[in-house]
Every structure is written in C-alpha cells, then in structure tokens.
C-alpha cells in the first residue's frame, strides 16, 4: 500500500479560532500576499468556511485603512 497523502487541517481549526475579526490586522496580514492581495486557499490550507469570513474581514479592514489594498513602494528620501 502506498502511503496516504497528508490530511490538511485548517490553521484556524488548529488554533481554535471560530470567528475572524476585522479589527485584528496582525492576524489578517498573515493571509495577504506580497502584492497585498488575498492569499488563496490553495496556499494557506484555510477551510472554505473560514476563507469566506477571512475575505470579508480583510475587505472591511481595507476600507478602514488598517490593511493596504496595493503594495506601495516609498520613494527614497534625499
């Protein structure tokens, strides 16, 4: 018998999080990419249920200026 593929567990289920708050930019910033777009479920292993919550939380945080919408390189100060 070949070994079974590894079973993926949602990182939120592992740490016991059931509700994602938009006021927590530190947690949300772990799930955005280098260009500040929402990281896909494929890469993070988040369950579909939590990904929906996560996406709405990130969008709310963006509206209030807690998270960036795009990557912005600061110009060099002379």
């Amino acid at each position, binding site marked *: 018998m070949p070994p079974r593929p590894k079973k993926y567990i949602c990182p939120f289920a592992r740490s016991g999080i059931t509700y994602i708050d938009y*006021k927590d930019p530190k947690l949300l910033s772990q799930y955005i990419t280098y260009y500040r777009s929402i990281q896909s479920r494929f890469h993070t292993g988040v369950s579909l249920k939590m990904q929906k919550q996560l996406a709405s939380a990130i969008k*709310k945080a*963006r509206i209030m200026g807690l998270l*960036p919408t*795009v990557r912005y390189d600061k110009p060099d100060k002379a």
Partner: protein
Amino acid sequence: MSEQTTKYEIMAIIDNSLDEKAAEKQAQDSLVKRIKALKGEVTFEDFWGARGFAYIIKKQTWGYYVVLQFTLSPAALQELKKELNIDKHIVRFLVTKVDKKAPVPRKYADVKKEWEALEKERKIAEIDQKPKRKISTASKPSVEKNDEEVKSSEKKSTKKVATPKKDDLDKKLDKILEDSSIDL
C-alpha cells in the same frame, strides 16, 4: 417598545487636526451623544488613539480610531449615517452588525499589551536558543567537575603538550582546576 433594535458596531476615524484629548471629546460629541439622542444604548466604548493609515485617506496619513457597540433601530441607524456623513471631524466610518459568534469585545490597549508580551517571549526564546548550543559544549564540563573527573582531566592535560594550541588550552584548564580546588 414596538420598534425592534439590533446590535451594531461602529468604527470611526476622527480628524488628525485635533489633539488626542480633543479627539476623545469629539468622539463623545459626534458619536455617543448622537446615538443616545436617537434612543440607542452604547454598550461598549473604546478609544484606540492615534494610528497610521495603510494608505492616504482624504489627504491624511493618520487619525484617531474609535470603536463603539450599541443598539439602535434600523431606521434610526440611517439617520445616524446621514449625520456622520456630514460631520466634518469624521474622516471615515464603518457600521457592521455584531455577529452572534463574536466574542465579548475587548479594549484595544489590553490586546496590544498581549501582542507585545507575546513578541517579547518570542524574541527571548530566539535569543536563548542560539547561544545554548555553544554554551552546552564549552561551559558544562568545566562546571560539573567532581574530584574524580578532575584527576582524569589532569592526566589528559599531561598528554596534550605536543602542539602550541593545546598548550593554551592546558593553561586555561589549569586555571579552572585551581579555582575549582579552592571551591572544593
């Protein structure tokens, strides 16, 4: 009361032209008093203080954040939104319904303290891990020497006289041995 009320949460940004104390007063004037005037109840208040934006909003780079939880009727909420849109001192606001799953709200200052404590622990853990490996090889044998071990090390030191590098080691060993003999 025939009107149904629902629980809402509002996060608002206050203009950075004010002082911190003045901004806190402004939050009371423009948010808390208005909610009370519309027969709502404020259940939770939290003034975050100054905070930088992730991007420029209305030509400003930072502002004062306020979070409130309150109960209001849906019709009254519409009036509140209209008034807030006209308010000069409010840069932006976001009204959300409080989720049933949401935990009891906590003050931002307390949450921030916890983050800082966690980061400190992490940093200490990182620092501890690195030198431990070096110390474990170097310092442990010198500290945990009994009388029998000292004798064995003396024999070894007599054998290792051939190379100059080992001479230095022997001198160090001798010093340690002398100290340990005094202690014992």
